[in-house]
């Protein structure tokens, strides 16, 4: 009896323990039961790795059947009878391949990642909410008239996403949901606003005023303004200025001066923060979002047709930020390109008449204000024009996936926007992203129906506000056009947005927005081509109005203009090769000076050898070159020595660092006081500092890598692309991908290699549109699918895939078809 009771108790204990770990999360693991269930859990995911050859689905609200044919690249061609059905089907097919991505990215914009992945995402969510993005999204949705095209499109798309989601059995849930032990949430129109805000966060943040403040606190305002100029001193603008080479606006850079007392006081009040990090703004390495686009008129193309190329550079992820699709509605819509999962519309692409692509403008659309509040710890009012105004308070609740409360934050808003406490000061910000229009979900549909480049750009300018983009278009009629489109605020007094303004007066407020006529733009210029690479869009000699101050360095713009000027018979394949052109205009600016200094410097072996190595270089960042690694080391050491005056004295603090464009300007001033090291009593000049940088870099590299020309100096040993999965799980990520390019080349690669060309496209607008494109990754978000990463090798090698663009389902040859999906309304 006792034995039996012991056995029963033991069984109860074992069942209790095993049952508990099957039912409840254990550490980082989700409940084990559903995960290891071989019929519905982790391993059952394999059954949905590939799309079935034939499938059916239903979407509520569909007015007619929709045929979806997947081609041999996994691209869905959607043939619908009306536009709303086409967007329903688009939502359905995107969710079919990318459901988890839609939710993950939406939650990132909504500040609710903790509800998906737990408390580890709390800092990200806090930042998102503190920046005011979720509140703005909800306000924007509330303004949409539900009888408009915007609402119809958005709600149709959401219906498609939800129809797929509801059709999923447990066993077919995406792998990530199973690993997290979660289920997908309903998708709504507000989620599209969250996504748009997230794009704005990535592309429209700026901390110019804070960089400038830090620099002013170190070396005075005059020197700070010179090192962080509003206008780029090397001018190769987007709107052609009639020059045949980049114009250099050489002005003497003032010596480091006396710290600006107001800036010092503010810097001390704000603390030794990297303010970009303190404010939760995305980090920006060189070329982090270094996109390119260019177009060639028929007069300069070998085929006599307009050509367009675009390669937006963003953080590379698996699955990719882009999803390729083709939508056809007879006599209404025939558009091909890439969409962002979760947004209704083709963002970048082409129809039968016109092709378009974007680069980021980088305009300053985020301003900071130093506020005076009634209580330094728990303010309820802020001062404005001599009176106290109430702060809007909003309690933000952060929840665990099971609904448990993680934390509550009280956020405050002035009439300009969110208020943040940094050290002892309260800073508010106004940001166009928070004031975007809901029409942005509709603009891509309007673009898709355009019949000319001009019509497309006008549609965009009328409806699109954030994030500001250099929108390039080319059409079958031979026109090429570009316009830097977005909302640009007009500021008071100096008009500058890169200064920290006092918040206690309405005189600091924005006065209005730029008129479209003032946007930088060009239509079929005489030079026969247009190009943008995030550089300052307009020559300040043509228009000097403040648009921003965070312009991308000019190297890519110089290089692409050089290539396009030098080729009067451009082919589509030339365009493809330009996208990964390894030649560096940045190296062209520096290497001749470095080698000359090495020749004239005291004959130290390391300096002489470094000079010889650099002189032997063709200045191309090919994967097999063995010199780029030395050049990059010299540039790093040079910058550190040159700008030592900007480095704060506090340990661990980071100072502002001017770009290498300013270093290039200083090369022309060999005795400028900036070349002097503050740590020595001697007065150094340019040549001494460069010689020191050469020697130091060469010695460091030989100690670490051996002699030059060895395999360890090969560029591919130092520079590869890293494409992380959205959850940063290593086995779902791809690392060590060889890339051709480096800092400042047309296919730039810097830092951890996590950013790069997220989509490369070349379109030739002849009688029949011909297009080639690639993105790093694959159409499927399913890690077990061959289409998860099937395009990586071609992308890495700089190849493009020929795109299939059938007018009807029957036009796609049988050998190019892979799967068929038929969508119908639910039977009554």
């Amino acid at each position, binding site marked *: 009896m006792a034995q039996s009771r012991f056995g029963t108790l033991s*069984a109860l204990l074992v*069942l209790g323990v095993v*049952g508990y770990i099957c039912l409840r999360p254990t550490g980082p693991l989700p409940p084990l039961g559903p995960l290891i269930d071989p019929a519905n859990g982790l391993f*059952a995911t394999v059954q949905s790795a*590939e799309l079935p050859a034939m499938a059916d689905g239903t979407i509520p609200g569909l007015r007619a059947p929709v045929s979806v044919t997947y081609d041999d690249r996994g691209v869905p061609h959607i043939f619908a009878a009306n536009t709303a059905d086409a967007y329903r089907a688009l939502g359905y097919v995107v969710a079919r391949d990318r459901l988890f991505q839609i939710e993950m990215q939406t939650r990132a914009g909504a500040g609710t990642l903790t509800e998906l992945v737990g408390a580890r995402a709390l800092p990200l969510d806090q930042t998102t909410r503190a920046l005011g993005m979720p509140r703005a999204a909800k306000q924007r949705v509330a303004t949409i008239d539900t009888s408009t095209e915007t609402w119809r499109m958005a709600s149709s798309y959401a219906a498609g996403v939800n129809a797929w989601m509801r059709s999923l059995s447990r066993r077919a849930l995406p792998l990530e949901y199973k690993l997290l032990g979660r289920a997908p949430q309903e998708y709504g129109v507000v989620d599209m606003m969250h996504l748009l805000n997230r794009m704005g966060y990535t592309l429209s943040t700026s901390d110019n005023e804070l960089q400038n403040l830090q620099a002013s606190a170190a070396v005075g305002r005059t020197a700070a303004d010179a090192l962080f100029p509003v206008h780029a001193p090397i001018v190769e603008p987007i709107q052609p200025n009639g020059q045949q080479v980049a114009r250099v606006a050489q002005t003497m850079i003032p010596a480091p001066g006396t710290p600006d007392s107001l800036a010092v006081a503010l810097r001390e009040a704000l603390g030794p923060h990297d303010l970009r990090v303190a404010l939760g703004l995305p980090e920006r390495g060189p070329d982090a979002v270094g996109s390119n686009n260019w177009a060639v008129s028929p007069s300069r193309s070998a085929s006599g047709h307009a050509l367009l190329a675009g390669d937006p550079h963003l953080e590379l992820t698996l699955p990719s930020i882009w999803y390729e699709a083709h939508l056809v509605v007879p006599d209404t819509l025939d558009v091909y390109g890439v969409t962002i999962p979760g947004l209704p519309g083709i963002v970048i692409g082409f129809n039968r008449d016109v092709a378009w692509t974007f680069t980021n403008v980088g305009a300053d659309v985020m301003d900071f204000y130093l506020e005076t509040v009634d209580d330094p710890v728990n303010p309820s009012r802020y001062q404005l024009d001599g009176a106290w105004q109430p702060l809007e308070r909003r309690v933000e609740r952060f929840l665990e996936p099971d609904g448990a409360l993680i934390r509550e934050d009280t956020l405050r808003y002035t009439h300009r926007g969110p208020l943040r406490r940094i050290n002892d000061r309260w800073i508010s910000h106004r940001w166009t992203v928070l004031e975007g229009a809901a029409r942005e979900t509709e603009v891509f549909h309007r673009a898709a129906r355009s019949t000319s480049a001009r019509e497309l750009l006008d549609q965009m300018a009328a409806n699109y506000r954030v994030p500001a983009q250099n929108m390039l278009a080319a059409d079958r009629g031979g026109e090429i056009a570009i316009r830097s489109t977005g909302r640009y605020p007009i500021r008071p007094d100096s008009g500058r947005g890169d200064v920290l303004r006092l918040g206690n007066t309405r005189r600091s407020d924005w006065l209005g927005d730029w008129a479209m006529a003032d946007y930088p733009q060009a239509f079929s210029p005489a030079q026969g081509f247009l190009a943008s690479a995030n550089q300052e869009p307009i020559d300040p000699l043509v228009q000097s109005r403040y648009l921003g101050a965070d312009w991308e360095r000019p190297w890519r713009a110089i290089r692409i203009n050089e290539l396009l000027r030098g080729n009067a018979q451009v082919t589509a394949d030339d365009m493809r090769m330009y996208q990964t052109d390894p030649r560096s205009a940045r190296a062209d600016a520096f290497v001749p000076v470095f080698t000359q200094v090495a020749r004239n410097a005291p004959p130290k072996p390391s300096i002489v050898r470094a000079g010889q190595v650099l002189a032997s270089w063709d200045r191309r960042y090919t994967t097999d070159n063995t010199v780029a690694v030395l050049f990059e080391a010299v540039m790093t050491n040079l910058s550190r020595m040159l700008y030592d005056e900007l480095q704060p004295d506090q340990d661990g603090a980071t100072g502002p660092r001017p770009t290498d464009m300013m270093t290039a300007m200083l090369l022309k001033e060999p005795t400028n006081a900036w070349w002097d090291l503050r740590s020595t009593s001697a007065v150094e000049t340019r040549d001494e500092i460069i010689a020191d940088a050469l020697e130091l870099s060469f010695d460091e590299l030989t100690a670490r890598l051996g002699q030059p020309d060895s395999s360890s100096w090969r560029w591919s040993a130092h520079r590869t692309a890293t494409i992380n999965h959205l959850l940063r799980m290593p*086995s*779902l990520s791809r690392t060590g991908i060889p890339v051709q390019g480096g800092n400042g080349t047309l296919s730039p690669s810097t830092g951890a290699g996590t950013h790069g060309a997220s989509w490369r496209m070349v379109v030739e607008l002849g009688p029949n549109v011909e297009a080639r494109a690639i993105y790093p990754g694959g159409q499927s978000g399913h890690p077990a699918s*061959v289409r998860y990463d099937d395009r990586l090798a071609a992308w890495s090698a700089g190849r493009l895939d020929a795109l299939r663009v059938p007018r009807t389902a029957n036009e796609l040859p049988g050998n190019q078809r892979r799967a068929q999906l038929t969508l119908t309304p639910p039977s009554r």
Partner: protein
Amino acid sequence: MMRLLRVLGVAVAVAIGTWFGGWWAVPLCGAVYAVLRQQQPGAVSEAAFGAMLAWSSLLVWQVSHPAFARLSAAVSGVFPVPVPVLMLLSVCIAGVLAASAARLTHRE
């Protein structure tokens, strides 16, 4: 022979239950089987072996899929144990769940 058939019967029940219900069908089937086999020796072990056979079969079906190697590579870094060990662990857990539940309801 009869014992083998009983194990197979449990396996079929567990497989169907898991397919339509989920993992909790394993202890449920174990418990029910033990009730049905009251006073009969070996019911607990038959429930355990049946559950293990059911889950092994389902896993073999998943492993036979052409995409399984890719899935295995994808999840290999997510867990602290290799995928084959995880699968073995799954089968063992099924056995333990079925046996413990059967032991609770079985009277010899």
